């Protein structure tokens, strides 16, 4: 073990929410889990004199995104590990590591659990039963069904701001499909695999049935099964194995919002911030990237993200695909597996990005590990960006091949 974390950080304050125990009996009304969180946070900040705005990392058992949004924060470290009652000891451990690493200086560990007020499932159930979040109350009425119904709003705003068109974004679907036709494991590899498989044209994309205008079917990712895993190890171990290491040269994370109601700029994501952190750590910039793996839940996601990662100017992300740079044989291959659009998308596609980036940079694709050929590039650097929620949260990695 390289690092000694001992005394690398201290707990500087601790507080509780205003009414704990049996609120009904004490104040005649129930308290929500959210309220317990917010009061405890306010109280611990008041106690220590640390402004809420100075919190850089949020650690909680499943609440971190919602808490960040409720507080209007843009944390650069999010940990929402939920492993039961010991989660909070583990959060402190993770916070210690994050502070020791210099990623953050101030971490919040928060707990809010209306285990009595909203008890569900009988005594000792804990966690609190179903409670309505204000964000849910204020959005539930409006005919929103799943991701496409929300992401479409971002594309319309992009049209408005930059004068882009549905056809501009259709290029992303067409080029990504080209990659899929090179990957036998891609759902859309060919017509045998799927009646919708094989190459597609711009017209196929723009004239496909509408899901949520301006998103047609081919602007939307697949829904499939997937399992994937990666192992991360320290350099001495990495060098001792029979596989080739791919180095994690840079990493960053951030979030803009949890609910699209809070999306400040519908044509931007927090990837501008998460990639800035990752590039800085790597000592590399967008111009040094030889390929990119970009979460393409929708064509708009990929287009915007390319802009946020600095791979194209603002408003011009789609040109990487339109001008063929992102395509097979182009100067900056993007989504060489065929993407969430045409390879595989199980709901949370971030692991597929990692697996493909590793395969391309490590040479294992060339070696045919798992019996699959698929070396698509000679790239030695790759920016990998995952986008979560509704263009909400981003994690960026700068990966480099072993020299």
């Amino acid at each position, binding site marked *: 073990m390289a690092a000694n974390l001992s005394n690398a950080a201290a707990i500087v304050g601790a507080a509780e929410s205003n009414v704990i125990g049996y609120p009904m009996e004490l104040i005649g009304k129930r308290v929500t889990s959210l*309220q317990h969180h*917010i009061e405890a946070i306010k109280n611990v900040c008041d106690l220590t004199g640390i402004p809420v705005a100075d919190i850089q990392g949020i650690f909680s058992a499943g609440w971190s995104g919602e808490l960040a949004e409720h507080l209007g924060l843009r944390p650069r470290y999010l940990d929402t590990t939920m492993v039961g009652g010991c989660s909070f000891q583990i959060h402190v451990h993770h916070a210690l590591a994050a502070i020791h690493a210099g990623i953050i200086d101030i971490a919040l560990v928060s707990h809010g659990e209306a285990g009595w007020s909203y008890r569900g499932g009988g005594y000792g159930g804990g966690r609190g039963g179903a409670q309505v979040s204000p964000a849910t109350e204020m*959005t539930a*009425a409006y*005919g929103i069904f799943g991701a496409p119904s929300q992401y479409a709003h971002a594309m*319309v705003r992009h049209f408005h701001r930059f004068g882009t068109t549905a056809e501009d974004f259709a290029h992303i679907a067409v080029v990504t499909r080209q990659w899929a036709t090179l990957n036998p494991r891609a759902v859309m590899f060919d017509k045998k695999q799927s009646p919708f498989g094989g190459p597609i044209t711009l017209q196929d994309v723009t004239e496909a049935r509408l899901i949520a205008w301006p998103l047609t079917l081919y602007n939307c990712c697949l829904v499939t099964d997937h399992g994937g895993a990666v192992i991360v190890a320290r350099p001495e171990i990495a060098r001792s194995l029979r596989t080739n290491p791919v180095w994690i040269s840079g990493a960053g994370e951030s979030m803009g919002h949890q609910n699209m*109601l809070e999306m400040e700029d519908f044509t931007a994501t927090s990837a501008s911030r998460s990639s800035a952190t990752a590039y800085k750590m790597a000592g590399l910039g967008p111009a040094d990237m030889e390929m990119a793996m970009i979460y393409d839940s929708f064509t708009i996601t990929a287009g915007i993200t390319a802009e946020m990662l600095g791979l194209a100017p603002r408003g011009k992300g789609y040109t990487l695909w339109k001008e063929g740079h992102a395509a097979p044989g182009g100067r900056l291959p993007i989504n060489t597996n065929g993407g969430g659009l045409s390879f595989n998308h199980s709901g949370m596609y971030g692991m597929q990005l990692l697996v493909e980036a590793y395969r391309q940079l490590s040479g294992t694709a060339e070696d045919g590990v798992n019996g699959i050929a698929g070396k698509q590039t000679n790239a030695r650097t790759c920016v990998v960006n995952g986008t979560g929620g509704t263009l909400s949260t981003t994690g960026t990695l700068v990966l480099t091949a072993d020299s």
Partner: protein
Amino acid sequence: MAYDKPIPPQGQHTQPFWEGAKAGKLMLPRCTDCNRTHWYPRLICPFCHSAALEWVQASGEGRIHTYAVQHRAFGGWQQEVPYVTAFIDLAEGDRMLTVLRGVDATRPESIKIGALVRVEFEQANEDTHIPFWRVAEEQ
């Protein structure tokens, strides 16, 4: 005809909003320290982190920030496709989601970002009046 679309659940932090809606008033949370209005409702001001919040009646005016046309829906909304969803920039600041009224969903290009909209309420059940926004004539 009975209201056949999802009726929002009401939590314990938003009663002034729902009470206001019953009276045809759009109520918004405002911070008495920094004076800014926010949406959706919080337990703490998301701008200055004061807990001193109040509910105020809004003007009921806003402008279209962005929109989309929904072609795939379920339940009661399925009968309504295509319909237009939109985010509204409230005159008081911050943003609200709605299903937009007074627009032609079959001609999405005819809908203008920045267009003036006004709030109206539809009664869904005894306790719930839901705000919707309608495109209005510019004065």
